[in-house]
């Protein structure tokens, strides 16, 4: 089985997508729609097959990874790119949890999407997403990664706008796609710059690393570094778009308009982390350009802090989780910014479990409350939906970094690396720790408002509250286990370094380029401080929201006043840009186009007036006209004779 071709992995979801898409299309005219059991089985089968392939391949993966060039893709002068796959330890990790969580969420969705008219369509999109994500992770060149990169953006668009009869969902979807497009252009320009720098060959990751090492080794680093920095910034812009970092982060909270499994799969676990993946993939490039790394750290820091604070103000359960995702992504970027790519990937890994579990739990809550998302109308669900509550509480403990849970290990590691990263390290560390406290506060608020206290919704809706079906609970439980135990792959404090060693072939050499000799601090100190931060945050949350009366829910769940200003700050910034573009468009339509039209009209009218003037001679007098033409010939003759022609 070791000879399993790599292209099997993306093939299965692709087949699934085509099959399900055809089923959806064929059955779209019938009233009832296709059998849900059949569609559900198909839709789980293909991601599961892909997962099985990944498992088989990763068990037998040789040290250097597997490379396979499938065929030629683009072959024109200046641009020769092949379709090729690269299966190494980095893509192995990513693929394992992408396909694994993808399968789980497909199972969950069978329950969640039950009875929806677009059942088959939904799963076609999910399979398409998995295909794109697998291509993104598995490809061996930037261009093919870009295929996946835009592909996941497209699926995100399709799934956010899944319930497309509501125009607001469509707007959220449009926003997600366009903001991502802005980032994608950054990615595109990065590729273009690389192409013009070293030919299209270096779009391949291996050749790129080779190229950079060679240029750096040649001793003329300072010539190339400015260009490489621009390249790095371009790619980073792409990452900020996809991973919702400042300034391109506004789309992610809005993206919660999609079905909850989508939020769990795409907007928490997999797609949004592809930016981190790209940073790790290009680690060889990034470690050569410390300036860009600094920018990344600062952006990550600001994003983490800002989103954590914004998370405090949300009343919508999914929005809280969305801001939490943004904040956690900020952590990952901070880690990448200090060249700790392995720990950022590790956080991606653990985060995928606990955030997916949180989202699925939130989905179960929303499902049981028949679509209610406002936390002010929840409360006391612990007794009514115990399994969901347990899963969410475990995941909560993981995200706040409670000792022993997955988040503890990864967040701890990041904070430690931040501290050690150089002169600014302690500052980064303090802000990171502060953010961790805020994280604990808003997550605690979520848990308290949802599961503790008494139910605050209407009486008649209380009777309908029920635990989610088994198809939904099973994946949640599995993910909860992941949220507890995934961290032990790299429990630094107790000396397990399995994850680090696994990633070493890909990012290890790059990380060694930037090593800082900061004073060695006992890791237990960091662990203790981290625990303290989590406990402090939980305490604040319990003290503030546990007893206090939650204000009556009125109006929309969006924050008001100063909170809104904070939350929507970047929306305002985007609004300015959009306004400018619209203003330019207005000017173009109303001034430039009018001007062009006017010139056109002017020419036409002049021609018309001249024509009318000429036509005035044309009236009803044939004989007169003949006479005139004779006179004209006479005049011509005279002119010719006088000017000396003919003679």
């Amino acid at each position, binding site marked *: 089985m070791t000879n399993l071709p790599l292209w099997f992995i993306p093939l299965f979801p692709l087949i699934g997508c085509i099959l399900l898409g055809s089923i959806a299309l064929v059955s779209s005219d019938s009233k009832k729609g296709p059998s849900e059991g059949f569609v559900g089985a198909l839709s789980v089968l293909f991601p599961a097959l892909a997962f099985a392939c990944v498992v088989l391949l990763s068990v037998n993966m040789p040290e250097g990874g597997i490379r396979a060039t499938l065929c030629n893709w683009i072959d024109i002068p200046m641009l020769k790119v092949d379709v090729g796959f690269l299966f190494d330890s980095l893509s192995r990790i990513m693929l394992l949890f992408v396909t694994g969580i993808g399968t789980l969420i497909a199972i969950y969705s069978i329950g969640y999407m039950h009875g929806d008219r677009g059942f088959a369509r939904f799963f076609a999109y999910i399979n398409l997403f998995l295909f794109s994500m697998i291509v993104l992770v598995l490809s061996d060149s930037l261009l093919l990664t870009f295929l996946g990169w835009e592909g996941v953006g497209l699926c995100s668009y399709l799934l956010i706008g899944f319930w497309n009869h509501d125009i607001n969902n469509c707007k959220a979807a449009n926003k997600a796609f366009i903001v991502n497009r802005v980032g994608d252009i950054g990615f595109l320009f990065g590729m273009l710059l690389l192409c013009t720098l070293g030919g299209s060959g270096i779009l391949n990751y291996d050749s790129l690393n080779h190229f950079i090492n060679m240029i750096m080794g040649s001793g003329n680093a300072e010539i190339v570094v400015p260009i490489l920095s621009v390249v790095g910034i371009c790619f980073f812009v792409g990452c900020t778009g996809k991973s919702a970092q400042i300034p391109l982060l506004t789309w992610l909270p809005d993206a919660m308009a999609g079905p909850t499994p989508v939020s769990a799969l795409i907007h928490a676990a997999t797609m949004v982390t592809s930016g981190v993946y790209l940073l790790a993939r290009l680690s060889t490039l990034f470690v050569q350009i410390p300036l860009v790394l600094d920018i990344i750290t600062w952006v990550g820091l600001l994003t983490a802090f800002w989103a954590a604070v914004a998370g405090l103000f949300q009343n919508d359960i999914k929005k809280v989780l969305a801001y939490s995702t943004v904040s956690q992504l900020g952590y990952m970027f901070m880690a990448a910014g200090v060249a700790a790519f392995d720990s950022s990937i590790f956080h991606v890994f653990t985060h995928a479990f606990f955030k997916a579990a949180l989202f699925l739990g939130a989905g179960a809550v929303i499902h049981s409350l028949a679509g209610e998302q406002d936390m002010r109308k929840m409360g006391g669900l612990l007794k009514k939906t115990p399994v969901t509550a347990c899963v969410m509480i475990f995941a909560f403990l993981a995200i706040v970094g409670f000792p022993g849970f997955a988040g503890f290990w990864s967040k701890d590691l990041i904070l430690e690396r931040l501290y050690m990263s150089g002169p600014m390290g302690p500052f980064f560390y303090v802000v990171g720790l502060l953010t961790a406290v805020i994280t604990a506060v808003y997550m605690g608020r979520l848990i308290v408002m949802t599961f503790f206290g008494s139910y605050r919704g209407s009486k008649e809706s209380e009777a309908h509250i029920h635990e989610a079906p088994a198809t939904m609970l099973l994946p949640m439980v599995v993910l909860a286990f992941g949220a507890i135990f995934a961290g032990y792959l790299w429990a630094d404090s107790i000396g397990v370094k399995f994850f680090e060693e696994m990633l070493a072939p890909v990012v290890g050499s790059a990380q060694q380029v930037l090593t800082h000799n900061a004073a060695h601090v006992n890791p237990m100190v960091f662990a203790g401080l981290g625990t303290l931060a989590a406990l402090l945050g939980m305490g604040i949350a319990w003290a503030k929201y546990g007893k206090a009366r939650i204000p009556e829910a009125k109006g929309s769940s969006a924050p008001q006043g100063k909170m809104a200003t904070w939350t929507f700050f970047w929306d305002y910034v985007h609004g300015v840009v959009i306004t400018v573009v619209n203003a330019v468009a207005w000017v173009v339509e109303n001034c430039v186009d009018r001007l062009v039209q006017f010139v056109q009209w002017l020419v036409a009218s002049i021609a018309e007036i001249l024509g009318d003037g000429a036509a005035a001679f044309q009236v009803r*007098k044939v*004989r*007169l006209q*003949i*006479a005139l033409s*004779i*006179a004209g*010939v*006479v005049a011509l*003759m*005279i002119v010719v*004779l006088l000017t000396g022609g*003919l*003679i």
Partner: protein
Amino acid sequence: MLALIYFIILGVIAVGSALCVLLSKHPLYGALSLVVSMLSLAGIYGLLGSPFIGVVQIMVYAGAIIMLLTFVIMVLNAAKDGKTPMFDKVSLFVIPAALVLSGLVGFVLVRSGIAFDATAVRGSVKLTSETLFNVAQEGPGYFVLFEVIGLLLLSAMAAAVLMAKKRLGTDNEEDK
């Protein structure tokens, strides 16, 4: 010398009858003057050494076209229209213009200095028919053109019949 005398005689007749056309009141007189003009022109053709054209001129023009014209004039009673003035304001404008034009052209012609070429071929029946109908010779030839002209005449005839048929029929019945 003799040719010149003949030419002058014929030319004067031609121009004179042409002027008659211009000045005659009734179209019938005009048509008859036109016949005279045609005949004298046919004579000039013969004088110039193109007898075939002269014969055709007599046959087609004088014989056919003008006869047709006179026939129509006679059929239409109102052809002599007393109310229609012979000349009007436009005429006063046209006559000088045409005269000046011909004067100018004549001036240029006189200055151009053309002369007869002794080797010019006589346009006999034999030569004309050979030239017209020889399909074997190089170049486009006149044969196709000749056939096209035949078609043109046929279609003109058809058109004339179509246009005039109905009205003439009723008209004749009314007259009787």
